[in-house]
């Protein structure tokens, strides 16, 4: 006690060091250790999660390709006034022919065609065929030669498109992702009605995810309650049944759903045999939205049950008893005392199921029929088939934004601290 007299106001240790400094030093070692423990996971998440997301988001606006490959003609095009309705001058055509020759040599010109084909159908073959013919164009006038190679070069729209998409950053992927596009005059307009699909799919995805989350809650709540109140041995058995979907492969599950649910399937056979439905009025439960809902609810149910169960397990049975002894009938007691105490589990399960559902695509594709396609199917399609990674990135970024907004809303309304995953 006697040593604590050094400077007025500053606490020091026995040897006169300022106490704060000394404490920091003592804590530094444990801080470093904590950071080292976290580092592998942090790196893992950085490499496998954050970087790919950043990458895809970057790709959804990135647009260096056109100006990089058509590096002679694009700068010249900037001086061309596309509003006059005249074709660009001869030097642009000449530069374009040279770009084609070089692009043909480097095998890069096809990428420009593919890129522009995202905007206007037909660009892909225009570039492919022109590339073959361009090497035979030896001398001018290049305008006529190029138009002779393909008459679309005589269309002002083609040049407008190239000019519009020659910036290093483009919004066209995002426009496409919400069923909009640039018109030929550069203004934003709606896609033709029969190509409008993404907004519909976003809405459908959100709606189905909400419905599936609600179904999981309705089905999962009583099961979780049962699990939490039964003796351990019985509840362990039941828990295994709940977790069973986790342990079977998707193909096995899909096949069994089909066997069960199809019109010539077990359930329909049973209903016909019992006489509930006529043989010619068999119910369609698969290859439509019902199939998606049934299958996804089945798959995602454990994600609802587990957090609910872990929260319910912590609610002492005495709460319900107390409520009843205080005069509440069982229903009131349940609604006013039990349910509010499970909000954390409902929130956690709901968010978990919803977020997983929003990104699901294999199951809907297999059992969903016409109305079961979700937005993720298109993301996968653009990733794997059309290689339009820009559009895939834009769709993914929008989906991510929707999830984040919903998450923030949830935080505002329920409070994220209230979430309990188990």
């Amino acid at each position, binding site marked *: 006690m006697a040593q604590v007299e050094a400077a007025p106001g500053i606490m020091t240790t026995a040897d006169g060091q300022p106490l704060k400094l000394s404490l920091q030093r003592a804590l530094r070692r444990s801080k470093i250790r904590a950071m080292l423990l976290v580092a592998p996971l942090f790196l893992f998440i950085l490499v496998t999660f954050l970087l790919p997301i950043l990458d895809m988001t*970057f790709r959804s606006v990135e647009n260096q390709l056109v100006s990089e490959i058509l590096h002679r003609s694009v700068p010249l095009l900037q001086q061309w006034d596309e509003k006059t309705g005249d074709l660009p001058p001869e030097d642009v055509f000449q530069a374009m022919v040279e770009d084609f020759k070089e692009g043909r040599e480097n095998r890069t010109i096809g990428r420009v065609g593919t890129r522009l084909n995202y905007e206007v159908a037909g660009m*892909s073959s225009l570039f492919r065929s022109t590339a073959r013919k361009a090497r035979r164009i030896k001398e001018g006038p290049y305008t006529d030669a190029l138009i002779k190679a393909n008459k679309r070069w005589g269309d002002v729209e083609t040049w407008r498109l190239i000019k519009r998409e020659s910036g290093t950053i483009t919004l066209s992927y995002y426009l496409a992702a919400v069923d909009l596009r640039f018109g030929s005059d550069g203004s934003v307009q709606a896609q033709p009605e029969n190509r409008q699909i993404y907004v519909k799919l976003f809405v459908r995805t959100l709606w189905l995810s909400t419905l599936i989350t609600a179904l999981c809650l309705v089905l999962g709540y009583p099961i979780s309650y049962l699990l939490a109140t039964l003796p351990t041995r019985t509840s362990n058995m039941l828990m295994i049944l709940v977790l069973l979907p986790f342990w079977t492969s998707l193909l096995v599950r899909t096949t069994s759903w089909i066997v069960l649910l*199809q019109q010539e399937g077990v359930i329909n056979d049973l209903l016909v045999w019992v006489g509930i439905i006529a043989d010619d009025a068999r119910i369609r439960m698969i290859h439509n939205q019902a199939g998606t809902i049934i299958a996804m609810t089945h798959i995602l149910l454990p994600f609802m049950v587990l957090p609910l169960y872990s929260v319910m397990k912590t609610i002492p049975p005495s709460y319900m008893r107390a409520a009843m002894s205080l005069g509440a009938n069982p229903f009131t007691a349940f609604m006013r005392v039990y349910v509010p105490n499970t909000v954390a589990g409902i929130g956690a399960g709901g968010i978990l199921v919803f977020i997983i559902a929003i990104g699901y695509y294999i199951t809907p594709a297999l059992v969903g029929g016409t*109305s079961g396609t979700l937005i993720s199917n298109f993301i996968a*399609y653009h990733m794997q088939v059309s290689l339009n990674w820009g559009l895939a990135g834009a769709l993914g970024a929008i989906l991510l934004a929707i999830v984040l907004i919903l998450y923030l809303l949830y935080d505002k309304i329920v409070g994220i601290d209230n979430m309990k995953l188990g």
Partner: protein
Amino acid sequence: MKDVLKYSSFAFAGAAAFGLAATTALAETDLVVVSWGGAYSASQQKAYHEPYMAKNPGIRILNDDSSSEGLAKLRAQTEAGNVTWDLVDMVASDAIVACDEGLALEYDPDELLAAAPDGTPASQDFVEGSLMDCFIPQIVYSTTFGYRTDAFEGDQPSSIKDIFDIEKFPGKRSLEKKPIGNLEWALLADGVPVDNIYDVLSTPEGVDRAFAKLDTIKDHTIWWVKGAVPTQHLADGEAVIASAYNGRLFAAIEEEKQPIAMMWEWQVFDLDGWVIPKGGKNIEEVKKLVYFATDTQRLADQAKYISYGPTRKSSAPLVGKHAELGIDMAPHMPTDPKNAAKTLLFNYEWWADHRAELDERFQAWLAQ
């Protein structure tokens, strides 16, 4: 930012690259051959890879069943500057995309590929239109129709018009959930001559006309995504008519003895073949493998194991019996003259231009 792109693409390709890179040091040369897996890879293994490795002890062929994601993975590898695949099996339409993207090697058929035994150069021996800038054709398969033989009394479906005739042939159809093929069939059933199909489809009215025809069976159609599904639909009685790959139908009819028959009219030919990734590490070795694997005898051999037709005209007479069932394979080939009276070959160029647009339109149509 370019670096970020590069490294994250590397992470994307990493999973595939990692497992394979570890094994390269063992044989003198390891060739990573990417294909579809299952019965198809098995037929390639028996007809091409095993004889080739027997002849060339220094070569080891490693199979990777990634063809269904071939394009995306190949692009990721190329962007990361680390192409670990040596040969990739692709359908022709994917090969065109790969070629446009600069992912695949262009080649000269007469230089890379063997001449027919009678000396016909490769460029003449392969089926017309099958050779493309980067695409080395291997088999012709077709998407055609199968129907349940117990579904209709009297007349059985025999033409494309019957497929769209709900009155005469009631029951569910099972069709592939994409516009390619379905649009062509719709126009053919609507009376468009086969030579005009793509001209008609190039006009907005033509596309509308095709969708209008599809509308007539839309309520009677279930859609499949995976190739194994349509024959299952037929076997379960979920559908009475289904479009399916001819190899799947062959298996259902001859191996599983299902009450199914085939309707070959306007079968749609598609091609499957090899693509040599640009930037591969063993390009010279791979070229030798391709030379061997696409010669007349090898292509004919593959048909012993799977009922897809060889793309060389000179192979057709050599097609023998099924290796296990012992049945003559020739009549089951989509290229057999009896089956190929009316066939349609995709216009790949046209689809390369219009696929994205029509896929969206098709989904919008489905959702209506």
